[in-house]
């Protein structure tokens, strides 16, 4: 399959009154056509900023320090705002966590979708309406003809998120960035939205970059997973490789903090300390200060990526042939399952 999104050595800085904050530090990433890539990390690790830098929806004080972004063969790092406008929507769209702040509360849902259709194509009024109804049908809203004229407050949270999805899909984008799209929803609704995303991928061949901090959701939806910490990808691999054979101590820590993976009767394991502020990143590996398995070299030099398999790599010195071998403390094993 062709690679549709390629990010090479991307670094992004924010100029703040306190100094320069490095939000993204040298990220390499590629996403294939029709793939669902999940980016996992805690708040402030740069996962949202990474998506926004592809969309170029960054605040004014952000600066791309280095790196290139190639979408569908087009290099977009140097694009002007005007060029970006035609790319947004046609090439990629984004949906956010809170559907209510995305939608205009005073305009009927159908009209908002039709507006997106007309912005990105030269469809007339009637054609746009027909396409909007088609989209409402596609994302699973019953009675689209009646619902077309209703304002967002008539809809439940899940249905609003579906409408946002319809707007994002209005112009047939190739890549959809979904930034925590189910975090604000109840679990039963969340399950339905995830199923919808999977269905859309199969039907439209959509590529989805899914940002989340919920490993349960990621296990459901992702083909590949990238774990981010402090602006860097620390581990990347297929979903089964990340869950059943994690190699980076941070991935171990994340998995062990989940109560559903805790062994019965044992206390939860937690990662000590807090995510760092990226104002003055320390020398070496930023995670070293929270890492129970940190080696001396972690404090001195940033670890490179070590390949575990052709699709799986992790940036930790533990994978260096000279390092001591530490078995993964995560109890999750393939096919073992847990009592449910």
């Amino acid at each position, binding site marked *: 399959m062709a690679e549709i999104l390629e990010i090479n050595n991307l670094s992004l800085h924010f100029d703040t009154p306190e100094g320069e904050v490095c939000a993204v530090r040298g990220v390499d990433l590629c996403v294939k056509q029709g793939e669902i890539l999940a980016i996992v990390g*805690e*708040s402030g690790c740069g996962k949202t900023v990474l998506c926004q830098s592809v969309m170029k929806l960054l605040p004014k004080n952000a600066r791309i320090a280095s790196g290139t972004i190639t979408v569908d063969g087009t290099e977009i790092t140097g694009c002007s705002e005007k060029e970006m406008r035609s790319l947004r929507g046609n090439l990629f769209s984004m949906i956010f966590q809170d559907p209510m702040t995305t939608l205009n509360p005073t305009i009927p849902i159908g009209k908002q979708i039709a507006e997106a259709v007309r912005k990105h194509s030269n469809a007339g009024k009637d054609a746009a309406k027909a396409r909007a109804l088609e989209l409402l049908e596609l994302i699973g809203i019953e009675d689209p003809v009646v619902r077309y004229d209703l304002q967002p407050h008539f809809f439940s*949270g899940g249905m609003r998120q579906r409408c946002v999805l319809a707007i994002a899909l209005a112009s047939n984008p190739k890549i959809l960035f979904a930034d925590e799209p189910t975090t604000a929803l*109840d*679990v*039963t609704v*969340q*399950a339905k939205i*995830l199923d919808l995303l999977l269905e859309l991928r199969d039907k439209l061949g959509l590529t989805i970059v899914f940002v989340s*901090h*919920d*490993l*349960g*959701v*990621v*296990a*459901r939806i992702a083909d590949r997973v990238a774990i981010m910490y402090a602006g860097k990808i620390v581990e990347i691999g297929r*979903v*089964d490789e990340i*869950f*059943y054979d994690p190699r980076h101590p941070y991935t171990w*820590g*994340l*998995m*062990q*903090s*989940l*109560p*559903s*993976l*805790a062994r019965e009767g044992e*206390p*939860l*394991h*937690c*990662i000590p300390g*807090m*995510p760092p502020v990226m104002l003055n990143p320390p020398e070496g590996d930023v995670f070293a200060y929270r890492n129970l398995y940190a080696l001396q070299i972690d404090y001195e030099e940033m670890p490179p990526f070590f390949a575990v398999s052709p699709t799986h790599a992790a940036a930790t010195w533990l994978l260096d042939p000279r390092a001591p071998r530490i078995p993964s403390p995560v109890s*999750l094993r*393939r*096919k073992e*399952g*847990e*009592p*449910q």
Partner: protein
Amino acid sequence: MTATPVLDVVGLVQHFAINRSVTIRAVDGIDFSVDAGEVFGIVGETGSGKSTVAKSILGVNALTGGEIYFKGNLISAKHLPKEVKDDVHRNMQIIFQDSAAALNPHMTVEEIVAEPLLVNRVYAAKEEREERVLACLAQVGLSAAYRHKYPGELSGGMRQRVAIARSIAIRPDLIIADEPIASLDISIQAQIVTLFQHLQKTEGFSFIFIAHDLSMVRFLSTRIAVMLKGKIVELAPTDELFRHPLHPYTASLISSAPVPDPDLERSRTRLAYDTSLFTGDGVLTEVADGHFLLM
């Protein structure tokens, strides 16, 4: 269940009249009791009335109907004897989801934690009070260096620790935590839940843990009540509830909660439950030992 429970809620009804024709039935007749030293979990989706239950217990709203007993004393009446009132104020504490809103931004950490001690006149001497404040901060894992900081200088996890220190300062009998970890990161969530578990064991208070995250409630609670549209649909000991969920809504909640195991997660079938069919009729009946079901 022979000893007097710490908290006994009988037929709690809480309606909010929006205008003459619309009344929101937030809580619609629920019964439960919390024993001494127990961790009682309440789960439910948005709008199920779980936070309203917490507020009603604390006396924020005047009840529409029903009674609440705290250690055997009626606390839901309009006029209470002074001893009962003082007892409630001293021995019932709450922790909220949004620690930024729960802590006064103009007070230092030390002042925040000392306030309940001051208001309830627990210690006469200033030194004793200070000692207790520092002990509480240490218990929640904050060093003395934090005492002169303001909430605005702290991260979300740290602020939640301050809120916990404040709630345990006067050694209450009951702590109600309303979604205390929902706004925190996973690694911090694990830290706070571990802290709750540790404190609950050492201090021995009863704990009502309200959340929508089933896995965390399961990890922490001894008994769980599942709420839907202002009713408790099922109430059972934790293991029993997860092994044999009897109400279709409970079963659908458990099957919808994502499990961080790709193979298992993808092979599971999700049970759907149409909540619009739920009428709320029926009474909570004991179907097995300690297992109650709305039927």
